[in-house]
């Protein structure tokens, strides 16, 4: 029952943190539970338990392929949270710490959910738990961002609930019991009612796509990521979106079992490319480096969608990309958080010459930017190259061309912004502000560690990790 512990331990930690008296020491619970969670996840990763087909929760191959990445990301972010919250001593952190742990627990639940309804419950719960994290800064802008996050995300999540019901009805109509466990649905396979399956697919894709941030449902992302603290952004981009992504993967597997795989793949392909294109265009123009990260996230969600649409090798590549994107986005969000603190404002107009004000963070930010734009030898390079290869092997030449074109536009946009804030002369007014921010090891090490992980993940991808992705593909798309 370690897999349940993955969910319950952080939740217990949340209670503990909520009950803890002292603001100053409370953040220490974050790394403590982060370590426990990572340890549990690692134990499960190396010794995957057997999961009963009908169980509602379980550390199945898909959870094994993705959840450790989230755990790892959380661990590093929690280490960053300690110095961060010390810097923000003016704000009470009881809710923040407790909810960060709650989010971790719920994310573990979402990743392990093998029941459509529970998956929905977990996703919605994560959405809600993240709300106070978003408006941690307490500014009017933060509340505005939260409001949009809630309503757009809420609409999306409502649609995915409707979709879940439709899938249940597909089962009922096909003569099943309306059992919403993925195993039962997949087993029913071609027995599912096709019109209802397709309706469900549309609703679930749009619903969870909203949560993932696929265009045109991505509108909440730049606001939320722009206003949230860096760690929250990193966890949203690397953790919450992945729950939605695995949800789509699981549903896609059911749709495939029902015999509608090709249609589903075409929609995913199109939606993925559309997201990439829209994100790339946004990136070409945006002037705010935290919003930039949000658009970049939209782009990478598009890559995940595209990879999933390419079939077996593509799905494996997409799972790889979940890891590489999550870790690399972590680098960017954490270093962007440093730059934001030093510059005061995250826009190109305010922040200039950061290479002089905060040389280390700026260097990490540039390295992270190169990493996320598929520069070898960082992990996204390998995963995106696998997507390219899978697409070409599947004969999707045009899609790959569009993919590469979007990557180029995104690269242009990202480099424009990043070098715009890193190079040049700092504004005199900001120099004074920046002096108050000190680049201590505590705020430099976490992004650096993530960068190292991204590097290592690319260069020396452990065989067991590759094997876990392939196992997940086998789970989702069993070859007859």
């Amino acid at each position, binding site marked *: 029952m370690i897999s349940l512990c993955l969910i319950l331990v952080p939740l217990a930690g949340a209670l503990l943190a909520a009950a803890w008296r002292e603001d100053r020491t409370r953040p220490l619970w974050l790394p403590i539970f982060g370590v426990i969670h990572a340890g549990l996840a690692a134990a499960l990763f190396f010794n995957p338990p057997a999961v009963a087909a009908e169980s509602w929760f379980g550390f199945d191959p898909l959870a094994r392929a993705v959840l450790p990445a989230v755990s790892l990301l959380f661990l590093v972010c929690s280490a960053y949270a300690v110095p961060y919250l010390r810097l923000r001593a003016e704000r009470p952190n009881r809710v923040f710490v407790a909810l960060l742990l709650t989010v971790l627990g719920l994310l573990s639940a979402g990743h392990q959910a093998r029941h459509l309804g*529970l998956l929905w419950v977990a996703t919605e719960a994560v959405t809600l738990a993240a709300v106070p994290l978003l408006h941690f800064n307490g500014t009017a*802008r933060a*509340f505005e961002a939260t409001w949009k996050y809630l309503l757009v995300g809420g609409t999306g999540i*409502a649609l995915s609930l409707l979709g879940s019901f439709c899938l249940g009805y597909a089962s009922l109509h096909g003569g099943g019991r309306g059992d919403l466990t993925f195993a039962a649905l997949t087993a029913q396979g071609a027995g599912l009612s096709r019109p209802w399956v397709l309706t469900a697919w549309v609703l679930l894709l749009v619903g969870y796509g909203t949560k993932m941030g696929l265009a045109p449902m991505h509108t909440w992302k730049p606001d939320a990521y722009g206003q949230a603290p860096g760690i929250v952004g990193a966890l949203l981009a690397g953790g919450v979106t992945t729950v939605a992504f695995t949800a789509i993967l699981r549903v896609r597997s059911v749709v495939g079992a029902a015999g509608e795989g090709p249609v589903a793949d075409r929609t995913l392909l199109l939606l993925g490319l559309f997201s990439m294109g829209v994100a790339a265009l946004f990136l070409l123009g945006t002037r705010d480096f935290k919003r930039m990260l949000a658009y970049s996230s939209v782009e990478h969600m598009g890559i995940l969608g595209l990879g999933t649409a390419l079939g077996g090798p593509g799905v494996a590549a997409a799972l790889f990309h979940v890891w590489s994107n999550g870790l690399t986005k972590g680098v960017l969000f954490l270093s962007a958080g440093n730059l934001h603190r030093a510059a005061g404002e995250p826009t190109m107009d305010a922040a200039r010459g950061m290479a002089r004000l905060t040389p280390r963070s700026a260097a990490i930010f540039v390295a992270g930017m190169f990493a996320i734009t598929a520069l070898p030898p960082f992990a996204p390079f390998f995963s995106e190259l696998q997507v390219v290869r899978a697409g070409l092997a599947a004969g999707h030449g045009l899609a790959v061309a569009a993919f590469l074109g979007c990557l180029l536009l995104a690269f242009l946009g990202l480099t424009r912004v990043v070098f715009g804030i890193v190079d040049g002369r700092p504004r005199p007014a900001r120099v004074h502000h920046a002096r108050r921010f000190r680049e201590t090891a505590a705020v430099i090490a976490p992004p650096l560690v993530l960068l190292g992980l991204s590097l290592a993940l690319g260069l020396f991808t452990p065989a067991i990790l590759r094997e876990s992705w392939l196992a997940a593909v086998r789970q989702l798309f069993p070859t007859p």
Partner: protein
Amino acid sequence: MNEGTLNLLVGLAMGLNLLALGSSRLPALIRTVAAQGVVLGVMPLLIEHETLDWRVAAVAVATIAGKGVVIPWLLRRAMRAANIEREIEPFVGYVPSLLLGAGGTIAAVGLARALPLLPAHSGSLLVPGAMASVLTGFLLLIGRVKAISQVCGYLILENGIYLFGLLLIHSTPLLVESGILLDVTVGVFVIGIIVDRIQRAFDSLDTRKLTTLRE
């Protein structure tokens, strides 16, 4: 007999949709949403079954309490706290939204025909009712500018989904169902809190003012 009553209630809910679309005052809107919540809460009890399942009863009670009482109370409180003028300056006018809503309802009935239903449900208005409510919810979310009316739209949207969920009421396990219900309630609760915070931060609940975050 039960099916007839059920259809009557669904029809009532659909009527309330139109009423929501047409109401220009916030209290009226909130009242409409509360009424729809109560109507929805009664429905599980009418769905044909051998015995009155305690689970079904629990869902009904929870729904009536949540949608009919707690949430409307929350909204009303926020409205009073905000002390907003009750006039709503809609983004999409009342007449157009009414027409769109009516058209949408008709389309929903037609669209529901296109989807195959089980014989047991073929006479039911649940599917078209669900669709009409989802549509109404979207119309309110898109067409209104006051945060509270948008929340009402969101509630109607969820009511639609609830209507659809009634089709599956007997195949969904209680744990899941209550989880869903809890999430929905907490969700609206959280929204209410944020509405309150926005009111304090912006001194208004006019979402047209919430456009500082843009490209």
